[in-house]
């Protein structure tokens, strides 16, 4: 469970201080799917990075199962990311020189799993996203949708409790987008993940249990169905 209290993240742009997230309080129960919408530059990605321990708040606390990501040492946060938090990026962020299987395996490297166990888990993860037959393909040999599936497999192979996705359908065509939305929905249910999705995509957002809208660094939470009817920003 996430508990964010009075979280503020300020950036310095020259002499100007820009608040990306302002005085944010938020609780995300285990197993909840939260979609975050909002205009570009209003703090969605910063919020996601704070949740993932990729960034630290200027003030306030970000508790994940009782551990304050704002105060943990870098090595502890890194360990937490390795074990409990999966990331999906809009541009997939696959390592271009590694095959689909090796990209997925990269997420298991910090865990120190043995080779046999890694291979078994990689095969299972790729199978769960329907890419068992593309394991030896390089990212450049896969379509956008397939690359995002590999990224999803990479995020889930370590069996995290949290999945954080930044515009996971942003670079996909409509058909592929629907496939990815369906896949994420299925995995969320099956794996009982806590899932936070940053998206401009109302179709994706309306699948979430709750929708938050970021505006000038502040988050307004709304029930999902009603929020899905709103135009983001």
């Amino acid at each position: 469970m996430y508990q964010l209290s009075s979280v503020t993240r300020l950036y310095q742009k020259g002499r100007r201080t820009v608040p990306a997230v302002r005085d944010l309080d938020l609780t995300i129960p285990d197993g909840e799917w939260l979609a975050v919408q909002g205009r570009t530059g209003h703090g969605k990605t910063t919020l996601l990075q704070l949740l993932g321990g990729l960034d630290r708040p200027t003030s306030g606390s970000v508790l994940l199962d009782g551990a304050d990501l704002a105060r943990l040492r870098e090595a502890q946060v890194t360990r937490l990311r390795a074990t409990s938090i999966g990331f999906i990026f809009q541009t997939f962020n696959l390592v271009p020189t590694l095959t689909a299987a090796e990209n997925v395996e990269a997420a298991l490297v910090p865990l120190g799993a043995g080779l046999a166990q890694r291979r078994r888990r990689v095969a299972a993860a790729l199978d769960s996203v329907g890419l068992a037959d593309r394991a030896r393909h390089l990212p450049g040999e896969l379509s956008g949708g397939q690359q995002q599936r590999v990224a999803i497999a990479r995020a889930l192979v370590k069996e995290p409790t949290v999945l954080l996705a930044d515009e996971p359908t942003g670079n996909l065509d409509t058909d592929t987008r629907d496939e990815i939305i369906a896949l994420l929905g299925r995995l969320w249910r099956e794996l009982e993940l806590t899932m936070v999705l940053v998206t401009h995509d109302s179709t994706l957002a309306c699948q979430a249990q709750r929708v938050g809208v970021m505006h000038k660094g502040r988050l307004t939470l709304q029930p999902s169905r009603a929020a899905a009817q709103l135009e983001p920003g």
Partner: protein
Amino acid sequence: MFFLTYLRRELRRRIRQSVVIALGLALGVGLVIAVTAASAGVRNAQASVLKGLYGVGTDVTVTKKPAPPKGRPGGGTRIQIGPGGGTVCNGSKCHTGAQKVDNLTSPGSGILPASVVAKIARLRDVAGAAGGLVLTDTQLTIPASIGSAGGGTLPQPKSFDVDGVDLGHPALGPLSAGTISAGRNLAAADARANVAVVDSSYAIANKIKTGSTITIAKTRFTVVGIVRQPQGGSAPDVYIPLVRAQALATGPAGKGHLRNEVTTVYVAARSAADIASVRSQISALLPSATVTTSSSLASQVTGSLASAGRLASDLGRWLSVLVLIAAFAVASLLMMAAVARRVREFGTLKALGWRSRRIVAQVMGESLAMGVIGAAAGVALGLGGAALITALAPKLTATLASPTAMRFFSAGPAGTSGSSPSATHSVAVPMIASASAGAIVVAALLAIAGGLIAGTLGSWRIGQLRPAAALARVE
């Protein structure tokens, strides 16, 4: 192993850059090896020359500078050409007209009493001492018509080097370095015999064989052996027994003989560490003598050998240092640029839970691999370069100046003018560039160090990299 898979794939993806970095390092390493090999080749050539000059087993030589001529030129052999023909004077005795001159002299050396040999042999740390005479036999035929109208010019004198060898100490002196290729060596029993051993090069040039006779100081000597000196050595042309040389050689004033006198004392120290001590003892014993060790003798060698030595040690060293620095700089810059291009990739890995040090290890591994490839290529390049230098380098020459005893005078309207031509002895020395195992190992380690430096500089950026900032670039 994932580390190796990732490393291999990255090197393959950035093959062009990897090749550039590895080649840069290889070039630096190759140049270091080639220059080191060339330098070693020059050193070996120089050692070969010195060995020939010195003889095997000789650590110190003792000589004396020749005394300058006093007053009117009366010493040595004087040849004066005038309207009445050629006049040759030895000391105060002069002969005019057609004649043959054949003098055995020590033009470039001062004279030491033979007793110093025993004195030196008794010094501390001296293993042995032998005396020798370094002489030049000069032969000149003066025609009767010289000096008259249309009588032509004075023919060039023919000269060759003759060494008087102490047959009681065969392990010391210039003959000790040689190998008898025909006939036999001089033996103790030959001390008073007119027998000679001839250098193989001189023998070939003058068609001399075992059993041939040669004339030295108007005395016929039978050639009993042909000796081959180490390649590159500045070998005398003829070796004769010291006693005979002392009897036949003309003294500095053009009269008398050199009985009980020597021009050179060859000294062997008990060990290499004792050479300095022996040198200082001899200097104290004979303050006016020149005491030479191999290191001081090396500085007297001139010619292309010395030039090549200076070139290899000065220019070569700096050139290879510069190329190495350039290679390191290029490798480091390319590595830093490569890391900069992979910021998003490293940010993603950090998001996946990779610790910075694991990513640094990955980058260092890639750099190390490029260093190893560069080292291997560099060693091959260096050895190839050394082989090329050996194949293409012209023969080096070592030149030692030695004055002749003859002085020419011409009588003219302005009076008498004279000259004492100095002879130079040049030997061709082949340069064989050879890289030692130590030099190869050091050069290879340099390449690997270069790769690691490049990797360290590249990795420094990774340590500074914040995952959020790295991923923000994606947006």
